[in-house]
């Protein structure tokens, strides 16, 4: 797999096919049993701790659960990476944080605590925090899950805008076909730990591969079977008691 620089790449696939694991590989939180992951020419699995942490400063990640620090306000959450990694004066930190919050439309909500935010707002704060240090690469883990249509629209728009405005590379992991295709420049489709299809969103919609079709059209049965593996139904029904 190759993630093109400066583009939004969507990695799609059914739940449990290894999408989030892939992000964990890219961020160096997990090490692959075999193979290599290169970010900006650096081989992530073989980096030592110091270099890995240096690389992570150039990465932003938005978790599915947002992972905001619950004891800090919205402002302090966005300021957290800035304060941890720079010795900038408070005045400058404030300006930086306010500019990021302005991008996601939450400058006015800076005094709120994470528990007071709606699901969509939480994601937007997490997005502002992910881009706080102007990273070269931002990874989004299921950014569209569990959002109402308005919040969903906002997040879709923001991911695209932020990518283009800050000239960075975005990787969006999602099982949401419509949203994934609507913002991606390039799509990878994973199934059972393998790439089963790739191309532009248009190419993916036009493909005839049955694995890809089943996912893109949301068909309940196909190469990914509807039934969990089981013995024959009739045999199971007429089996003598007691059951296994």
């Amino acid at each position, binding site marked *: 797999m190759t993630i093109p620089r400066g583009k939004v790449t969507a990695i799609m696939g059914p739940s449990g096919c290894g999408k989030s694991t892939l992000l964990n590989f890219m961020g160096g*939180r997990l090490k692959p049993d075999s193979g290599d992951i290169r970010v900006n020419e650096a081989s992530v699995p073989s980096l030592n701790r110091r270099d890995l942490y240096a690389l*992570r400063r150039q990465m932003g*990640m938005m978790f599915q659960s947002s*992972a*905001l620090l619950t004891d800090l306000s919205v402002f302090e959450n966005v300021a*957290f990476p800035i304060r*941890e990694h720079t010795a900038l004066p408070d005045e400058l930190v404030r300006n930086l944080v306010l500019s990021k919050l302005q991008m996601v439309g939450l400058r006015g909500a800076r005094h709120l605590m994470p528990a007071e935010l709606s699901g969509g707002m939480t994601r937007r704060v997490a997005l502002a925090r992910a881009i706080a240090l102007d990273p070269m690469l931002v990874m989004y883990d299921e950014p569209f899950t569990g959002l109402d249509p308005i919040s969903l629209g906002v997040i879709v728009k923001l991911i695209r805008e932020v990518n283009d405005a800050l000239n960075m590379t975005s990787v969006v992991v999602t099982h949401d076909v419509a949203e994934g295709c609507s913002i991606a420049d390039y799509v990878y489709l994973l199934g059972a730990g393998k790439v089963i299809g790739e191309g532009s969103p248009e190419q993916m919609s036009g493909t005839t591969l049955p694995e890809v079709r089943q996912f893109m059209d949301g068909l309940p049965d196909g190469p990914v079977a509807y039934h969990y593996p089981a013995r024959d139904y009739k045999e199971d029904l007429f089996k003598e008691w007691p059951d296994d």
Partner: protein
Amino acid sequence: MTSIRLLGRWVIYSVQRLGRATVFLMSTLVGVFLILRRFPLIVQQVFAVGVLTVLIIVVSGLFVGMVLGLQGYNTLVDFGAESSLGLVVALSLTRELGPVLTALLFAGRAGSALTAEIGLMKATSQLAGMEMMAVDPIERVMAPRFLAGFIALPLLAAMFTAIGVLGGYLIGVGLLGVDSGVYWTSMQEGVDVYDDIMNGVIKSVVFGFVVTWIAVFEGYDAVPTSEGVSRATTRTVVIASLAVLGLDFILTSLMFNEV
């Protein structure tokens, strides 16, 4: 056969956990040195684990002192030795009850809170989030909490002992009519700074180290689900309490075997 297998599994599991806890302790101690320059973080945690535990320590210390005064008087008066009440109260508190009860209360109040907080941070991917922001959670979250517990427990134990002595005075002198001067003089003559007070302080330092280590590790090692966090919290209180009582026996036999 099954029981042998279960025993084997339990031993392997325990040794593995002990290994993880030791590695964790080492990284935390390194983190403690790195975090020393960030004083506000430590102050914040000393407030959370120390200052917020003061109330329960003060109230418990007062009652324990009052009970000691009452029981001590009732026993001593039979031998006409009620003039030694001050000494009995002070020695019981400085040597044993101060450090031990404080550590037990600390494990229940602050230890469980530490485990639950860290466990929930893990369950809500806050620790993973920090890692991805290139912030080491061991240094940023565990080290200040560990250091704070280590600082707070000896101070709380001192507070417990002092309030306990006052509680004993309240009952012994105020209620049962022991002479005030005798209460304090017996204490002044009988309590040794090194043998009694310092040994008590050493105990509370050891307890502070162990209880906070267990609490922070259990949180860090918790299974990131609601059930996992609840189990980890329970384990903190149980293991820390047993560790305190066991260590107290060992320390007492090392310190006071000649007395």
